[in-house]
């Protein structure tokens, strides 16, 4: 096994190439690298210890919590903390977050797919300028514009509504989405467009029958990326909403701190609960999620 990768291109009589591509091995898998392996295990501990401490603490009675070391397992595990959180509007927060994420994804897709298509297909001054605009947008931090946005949201009468979160979140998810989509769309060959054009296909038909089916990979990455933006968003909800009605999960977690006071186990239970939905999505769609985000970096 160890010399197999090395000698393949040299030996002309080796097995036909067609047999192999599915199980192409990486270059680092040939020999074990003890140093790298040890480093990976150390990082594993860095990842797992806080997660373990969180779950274990969330199962601890509040009386036991003071002076307790978070690394010690609870002596009498309890689900009381989860009960407390679930009876304090957790479902409502989750529902709002799902709605907000769906809204952001919808807006981003409806706006970015045609936009990226035009940016890739047209070689005009305007499409180039538009593309550059989005490039520039990648680096705009939401913090820089939150004060003027607050003024705009108030003037639009959107303050304290889910839309006040959804609209700016979608706008700030657009630059990276356009980058990802234009990257994918550029991989569609010129011939395919020409073939369709010869058939007399309209631009709209090309969009729905060629671009969207061919760009599935990029589109799913954009769905994941923009859903995560909405899922993770804190600043916009903090500043553009106030009442319980449109409150989303991140802001709800933040408010639990004052609601539960020093009840740290309950706070940690809410953190665990907030992770459960996306962890389930991760278990189901790990390949799409991880593969899609890997593409964000590009080459």
């Amino acid at each position, binding site marked *: 096994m160890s010399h197999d990768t090395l000698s393949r291109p040299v030996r002309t009589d080796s097995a036909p190439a067609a047999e192999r591509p599915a199980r*192409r091995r*990486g*270059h*680092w898998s040939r020999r074990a*690298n003890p140093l*790298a392996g040890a480093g*990976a295990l150390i*990082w*594993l501990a860095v*990842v797992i210890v*806080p997660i373990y*401490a969180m779950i274990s*603490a969330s199962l601890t009675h509040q009386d036991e919590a003071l002076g*307790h070391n978070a*690394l010690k397992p609870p002596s009498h595990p309890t689900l009381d903390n989860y009960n407390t959180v679930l009876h304090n509007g957790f479902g409502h927060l989750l529902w709002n977050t799902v709605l907000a994420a769906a809204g952001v994804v919808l*807006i981003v897709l409806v*706006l970015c797919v*045609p936009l990226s298509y*035009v940016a890739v297909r047209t070689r005009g001054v305007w499409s180039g300028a538009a*593309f550059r*605009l*989005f490039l*520039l947008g*990648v*680096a705009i*931090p939401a*913090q*820089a*514009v*939150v*004060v*003027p*946005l*607050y003024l*705009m949201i108030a003037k639009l009468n959107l303050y304290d509504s889910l839309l006040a979160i959804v*609209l700016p979140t979608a*706008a700030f998810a*657009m630059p990276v989405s356009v*980058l*990802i989509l234009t990257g994918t769309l*550029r*991989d569609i060959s010129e011939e395919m467009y020409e073939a369709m054009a010869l058939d007399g296909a309209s*631009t709209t038909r090309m969009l729905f029958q060629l671009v969207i089916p061919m760009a599935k990979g990029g589109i799913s990455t954009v769905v994941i990326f923009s859903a995560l933006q909405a*899922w*993770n968003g*804190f600043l916009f909800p903090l500043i553009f909403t106030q009442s319980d009605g449109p409150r989303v999960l991140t802001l709800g*977690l*933040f408010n639990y*701190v004052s609601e539960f006071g020093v009840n*740290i186990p309950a706070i*940690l239970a809410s*953190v665990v609960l907030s*992770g459960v939905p996306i*962890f389930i999505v991760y278990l189901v769609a*790990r390949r799409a999620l*991880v593969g899609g*985000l890997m*593409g964000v*970096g*590009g080459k």
Partner: protein
Amino acid sequence: MALPGVLFFAFFALAPMVLAFYLSFTRWNGLGDPQPAGLANWRKLLSDDRLGQSLTVTVALTAVSWAFQTVISLLLGVWAAGRQRNRAVLSAIFFVPFLLSSTAISLLFYALLDPNFGIIHRDTLGTTSGAFLAIVFVGGWQFIPFHTLIYQGGARQIPEVLYQAAAIDGAGRYRQFFSITLPQLRNTATTSSVLMIVGSLTYFETVLILTQGGPGTDTAILPYLMYEAGFKSYDFGYASAVASFLVLAATALSLLMVKLSGFGAMRSTREGM
């Protein structure tokens, strides 16, 4: 077809940038309409000791976070690019922190660093260096999984022939790493670094929840300074002057990115899997 998207983006992202500059020349307490104030906010800002301190903290936090995250995610990513089964399993676990929101992660570490409850029974967040390192660590804990993934994708695209040729020439593993892997990952590193630097400007949640800018004002990064001025002291003109600073920094960063990375060249971005 591109117009709705451009207009939407211009309205919710670009117009506010311009508006931030305008508001920095006004006096506004969040109610009613902004009143012209000339250069008052800028004069106040430039004579404010907190600005210099905040700039220093922001730059220091960005630099230390960048070094911390880049070293670890580069090594993990290159390691994970191999295809053995245990690597796939470990990579799956490594990714888990990224699934929690910044808010959730900040709360988790707020609890774990609590002197009465947590792992270390010491007042970590009460000391300047402790609070600073906690923010760096928490940011890394959250974002290293993502950047590992980016480096993993980049490492998988390095042509295998390069390693085969190097092996034939007798280059060992570490020589291969420094002579092939690192140079080949240059573009990946640029992308990752830009995302990291922009990302560290948004450590707002972490700072708000972990330290509230403290102890004192020792971890009050620029976005936090802006938040305090605006949404705690209701001095939105002053907050806008701080925000304008952020706009300038961000624009400089993105121009640098377009120059350094392949983005501007309209290159095709292949998927990593």
